């Protein structure tokens, strides 16, 4: 199958060149998914999906077009090549479009390509039973457990030819806790893994998340408004840093010229204890990307290194246009270096603050201002975790926040997609009703 996909990718590149492309690229994939669903605490659905993908990109005279569809028979390839060139012909020329030059082609195999569906179902049932026994107040709104086998090939007109055969299991939970008519907020937890050797309960932060949510049925509001310390749980840190990478260090903020960091490459932008990497090759990341969308071999890189802005997360086009180095992978596999203080010690050091499990907020402004509701969160008072909170808002500025770091925890949570610690920031505005 892999060899066939490679040939299809090369055939698609050839079709694009025949249709007139100066530079051409094709991505071809075949995916098989096995998925179990639990709804309202009961098994509801078992599905198997067989899908194909073909994405073709043409650059002609500096004009770029892309078409994608889920067929790759000969006729479709020929028609798509024409459609791709038509799309490109409508664009205006831009010399910055390009593709990766050939380096060392390779066939990658990773994860567990062949599913053990019976064992997957058993692990799923085991998790349901564990939750029922140990966390009786939890109501499982939805659980989705799946295995995905992906075979893909990438070719371009410079001679790049990669293939990847990978398989991974994923677990996604959405749940809340209930006692009588009282209920917690809902919360999502999940992991990806390439092994069914361990019970799902032991992976990522699933066990802790279930325990936290059981403690969020009774809530209180904060009174008034105060400036305090915000301790961000690892799962919540992912969503905050996602915005940071997009708006400050990503193509959107830099191409539009709105990023506050646009002229600050190499400068200190954060506390020196912060190192944020994009690391799909980290051993704790499951089936991280091995090649970028433009055909480069993926490499790990630091966006922020000891507080200094080390690199932007830019694709080749944006890098050429802005005359900046490109990012060395396209992933959001964030790895934040741990600190040397335990989360318990961090909490003990805080007089008044908030432990935030989920941030429900508007998209932060391009200037970094954020404001939203602290969900699945706890009050911190006099060095101790207090009651769960409701109707509590937090606001601040992302750029300022990075320079007001109190501590990074020594503990990290690895969920197969990211490796993140707890982080505590001072100077956050916390307000109640």
């Amino acid at each position: 199958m892999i060899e066939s996909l490679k040939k299809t990718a090369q055939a698609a590149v050839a079709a694009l060149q025949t249709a007139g492309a100066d530079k051409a690229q094709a991505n071809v994939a075949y995916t098989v998914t096995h998925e179990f669903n639990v709804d309202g605490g009961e098994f509801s659905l078992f599905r198997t999906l067989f899908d194909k993908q073909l994405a073709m990109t043409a650059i002609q005279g500096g004009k770029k077009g892309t078409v994608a569809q889920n067929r790759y028979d000969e006729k479709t390839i020929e028609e798509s090549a024409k459609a791709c060139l038509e799309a490109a012909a409508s664009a205006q020329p831009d010399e910055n479009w390009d593709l990766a030059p050939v380096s060392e082609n390779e066939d990658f195999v990773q994860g567990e390509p062949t599913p053990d569906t019976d064992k997957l179902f058993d692990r799923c049932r085991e998790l349901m039973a564990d939750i029922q026994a140990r966390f009786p107040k939890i109501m499982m709104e939805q659980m989705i457990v799946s295995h995905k086998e992906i075979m893909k090939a990438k070719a371009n007109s410079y001679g790049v030819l990669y293939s990847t055969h990978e398989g991974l299991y994923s677990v996604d939970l959405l749940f809340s806790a209930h006692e009588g008519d009282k209920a917690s907020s809902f919360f999502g937890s999940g992991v990806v893994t390439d092994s069914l050797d361990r019970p799902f309960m032991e992976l990522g932060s699933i066990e802790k998340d279930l325990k936290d949510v059981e403690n969020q049925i009774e809530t209180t509001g904060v009174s008034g408004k105060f400036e305090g310390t915000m301790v961000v749980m690892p799962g919540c840190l992912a969503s905050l840093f996602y915005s940071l990478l997009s708006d400050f260090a990503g193509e959107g903020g830099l191409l539009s010229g709105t990023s506050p960091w646009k002229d600050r490459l190499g400068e200190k932008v954060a506390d020196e204890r912060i190192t944020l990497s994009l690391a799909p090759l980290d051993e704790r990341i499951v089936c991280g990307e091995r090649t970028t969308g433009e055909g480069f071999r993926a490499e790990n890189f630091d966006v922020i290194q000891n507080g200094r802005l080390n690199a932007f997360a830019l694709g080749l086009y944006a890098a050429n246009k802005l005359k900046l180095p490109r990012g060395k992978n396209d992933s959001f596999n964030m790895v934040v270096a741990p600190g040397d203080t335990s989360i318990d010690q961090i909490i003990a050091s805080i007089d008044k603050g908030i432990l935030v499990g989920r941030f429900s907020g508007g998209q932060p402004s391009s200037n970094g201002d954020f404001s939203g509701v602290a969900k699945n969160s706890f009050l911190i008072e006099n060095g101790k975790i207090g009651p769960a909170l409701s109707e509590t808002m937090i606001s601040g500025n992302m750029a300022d926040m990075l320079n007001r770091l109190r501590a990074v925890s020594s503990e990290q949570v690895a969920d197969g997609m990211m490796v993140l610690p707890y982080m505590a920031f001072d100077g956050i505005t916390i307000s109640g009703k």
Partner: protein
Amino acid sequence: MIQDLLTDKKYLFASGANSELRAQRNLNRRAVLLNGALVGNVRTEQFGVSARVYENGVYGFSSTAEYTDETVKAVLQAASENAAFLARHAGKGKGPHKAMAPGSSRTAYDLNDVEQRTYIEFIQALDSYIAGKYPDLVSRTVIATADSMEKLLCVSNGTDGHSVLPRSYIYVVMTVAGADGKPVELFKVIGGGYGTFDRNFSKPESYYAEIDKLYEDLRQKAEGVYPEAGNKTVILGGILSGMLAHEAVGHTVEADLVLGGSVAGPNLNKRVGSELVNLVDYAHTALGKPTPLPIYVDDEGTAATDAVLIKDGILVGYMNNRESAERFNMVPTGNARAYLFSDEPLIRMRNTAVLPGTSKLEDMIASIDDGYYLLDTNNGQADTTGEFMFGVTFGYEIKKGKLGRALLDTTISGVAFDMLKTVDMVSDEMIWASSGMCGKKQPMPVGMGGPALKCRVTIGGR
């Protein structure tokens, strides 16, 4: 139009089970100009066939990207085997869904797949206008987007259908430097709605006035203020009341979320809003006009009708699929929708709206001594408890019954069934929006709308 390879496979449907076959094509077209550079120029298509079988209280599903007589049979066989596997291990001892009268629903719409250059040339014209007239912008983005779903459905029990749901829009995003030099941004959906791009957009100059208004609003915003934080009296404009209808109320009354423990469970037939509050999830016709995104039959073969959710402030119903309707002893109204051929139908909203009242907007503003008029949003999230948060991107202060300074970006929050009880004026004009995608395992195009609501919410300030 999708060739019918499904109807003649009905003989394969097993007795004692509910079976569905669906062939589906999704088209997406997108062109993006960022500061004049074409950074997005993409056409995608996804096409295939799926089968779903309900047996002994559980579903089996299978799909494939190949659409032939053989693959139709194969996915039906695979779906049956999957249902049997799950029934063996987790069956619930249930029979098939209640019988429905057989029927047929056909959408008459000629789905014209517009050439990519049409999108590009149109936004280039708009971009040239913006660049020429407003050189002080830090950044400008113009996006043309079109998507469509064509479905052919064949069911063992209910209404077979052929449906087409096309929509197309233009987005304009502008950024200027604010008073402190930091960027201030505002965006607007310019025109569009149900229909292909060629039918919705003819002359770029028709949209210059809307672009000018966007720039004028942005300039006011750049000189604006942050609202004072706290629980305040506000008027939510129609875009925000539509967001409220969808996010804060709509999701909590989706029956699958009710079964998952949402706040709507213990509140059925109880007061959840003031008597001025009425809320309906419309199928294809609302207040005598076609809805923004009309749905005539859902993906389980249920003919679509309106789902009345709140009547005179009382929660009276949920949105259901056939299974949940039987569980709650309600009538299914056609809310089971799937996004791609490879997606199973989920309980989804269609066109969810707060109904208009009798107040005039100017009287509502005049009645507020100190509050805010909130007009636009870029984001909304809500909890199954009904606690919601909306990002507010544009609005005004209200001081002594008159509009004051514009607002910088802020956030509002509240608990839906508490906040709706504070509604004491409802305007007589509706505003609909339909460009958004609802996210719930799968994306889904949805419409939402409402009048202006006077109520109390918590506003974020800074």
